[in-house]
């Protein structure tokens, strides 16, 4: 049986933990709101980009000399996985779910006889995969979007991929991140980046695309040559924004649970404390009374 002092210490310790988790929850909630607004603001560009790309790519895909970013290199030997995680932990299952999917993918690709390259974004991704797959990690980026994700950061990552791609380091590329559904639900998503899958996109965007034949200035090839790298950056930007919102959502939920659990724990400990205190008082009373009784009887 713990002493009264021990119980008091544990109650105080849980209380200060609760203060921290409650504060983290509030911070995560306000960051989540900002991240959601940012993701919302980025949507119009991505949609319109998709529309332009759809009307272009549909025509180019069949032609010889179509850009490799659209139709692939023809090879399938090496796959680059971009794994987007967070720099900080204490976000519930946020990083664990991404890493689980990443490991599954890597094993799947390797057992299919492909060479895998990894680019991690975020400290947790690097730390989580270094032990098992350290030999595959090509590079790790940390402190991406430390305060707020900017498009420039996404473009820098895209440039990095493009330099590797043009250098023939890999054939296909996809990104793993958490898509934001709500503060409670985030969906681990694997999205192919290179070659960019247009068919699926074209259909969804076709409704918005004007019918008719566009004129192109300069040529279709040149526009596509600029549009595809830009689209890569946009895809990465979108993924990073979704990931940021998911991270804050997951953290908010995790911290809410932690705060509630701490509350339960404090209630239990307090009950225990009061019982122990009462028991001690009763014991003392009995001692006094039996002492008095003994004197009386004598």
């Amino acid at each position, binding site marked *: 049986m713990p002493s009264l002092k021990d119980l008091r210490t544990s109650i105080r310790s849980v209380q200060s933990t609760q203060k921290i988790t409650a504060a983290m929850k509030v911070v995560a909630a306000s960051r989540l709101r900002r991240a959601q607004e940012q993701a919302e603001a*980025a949507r119009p560009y991505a949609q*319109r980009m998709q529309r332009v790309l759809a009307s*272009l790519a549909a025509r180019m895909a069949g032609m010889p000399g179509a850009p490799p970013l659209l139709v692939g290199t023809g090879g399938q030997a090496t796959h680059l996985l971009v794994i987007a995680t967070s720099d900080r932990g204490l976000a519930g299952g946020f990083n664990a779910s991404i890493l689980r999917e990443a490991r599954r993918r890597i094993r799947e690709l390797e057992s299919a006889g492909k060479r895998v390259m990894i680019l991690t974004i975020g400290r947790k991704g690097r730390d989580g995969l270094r032990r098992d797959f350290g030999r595959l990690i090509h590079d790790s980026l940390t402190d991406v979007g430390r305060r707020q994700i900017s498009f420039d950061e996404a473009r820098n990552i895209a*440039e990095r991929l493009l330099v590797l791609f043009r*250098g023939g380091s890999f054939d296909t590329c996809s990104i793993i991140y958490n898509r934001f559904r709500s503060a409670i639900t985030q969906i681990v998503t694997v999205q192919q980046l290179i070659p960019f899958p247009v068919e699926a996109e074209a259909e969804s965007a076709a409704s918005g695309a004007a019918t008719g034949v*566009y004129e192109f*200035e*300069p040529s279709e090839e040149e*526009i596509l040559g600029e*549009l595809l790298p830009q689209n890569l950056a946009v895809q990465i930007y979108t993924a990073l924004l979704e990931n940021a919102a998911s991270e804050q959502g997951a953290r908010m939920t995790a911290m809410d649970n932690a705060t509630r659990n701490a509350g339960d724990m404090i209630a239990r400990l307090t009950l225990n404390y009061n019982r122990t205190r009462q028991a001690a008082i009763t014991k003392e009373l009995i001692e006094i009374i039996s002492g008095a009784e003994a004197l009386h009887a004598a």
Partner: protein
Amino acid sequence: MPEQVSFELVTPERMVLSEPVDMVVVPGVEGDFGVLPGHSLLISTIRPGTIAVYQGQSVTRRIFVVGGFAEVTPERCTVLADAAIPAEDLDRTAIEAELQVVRGNLPSLRERVARATGTDREQLLIELAALERDERVAQAKLQAVAELAGH
């Protein structure tokens, strides 16, 4: 035929402008082009320069854009720009200072690219591309400032 063009200016980070306009002049890569209602279907890349928005005969807005794409249909004109700054917010001295810094850094970076190998080279090539882009943008900004002063 519609009487106005619904003009949208979007950057990756946000929707900058969305309004019906009488005419808009866009800095296309092969020269400026004006968009009036009923324009033919067109997709064009744009160069760093100034977009002019017309209501009636007068320019109501001038916006400097860094580059990107324009999609034109008879009803609408959508500009997807990498970045957009209202032309009157451009500050000549700040841009000149920026250009000076960029130009100062270019030669040494080019030299380092020539010497580097492997992963370093990758990184440097990215930096060089970014710096060259900055130079082009700064030049276009200066031109935009000069144009604005002329109007």
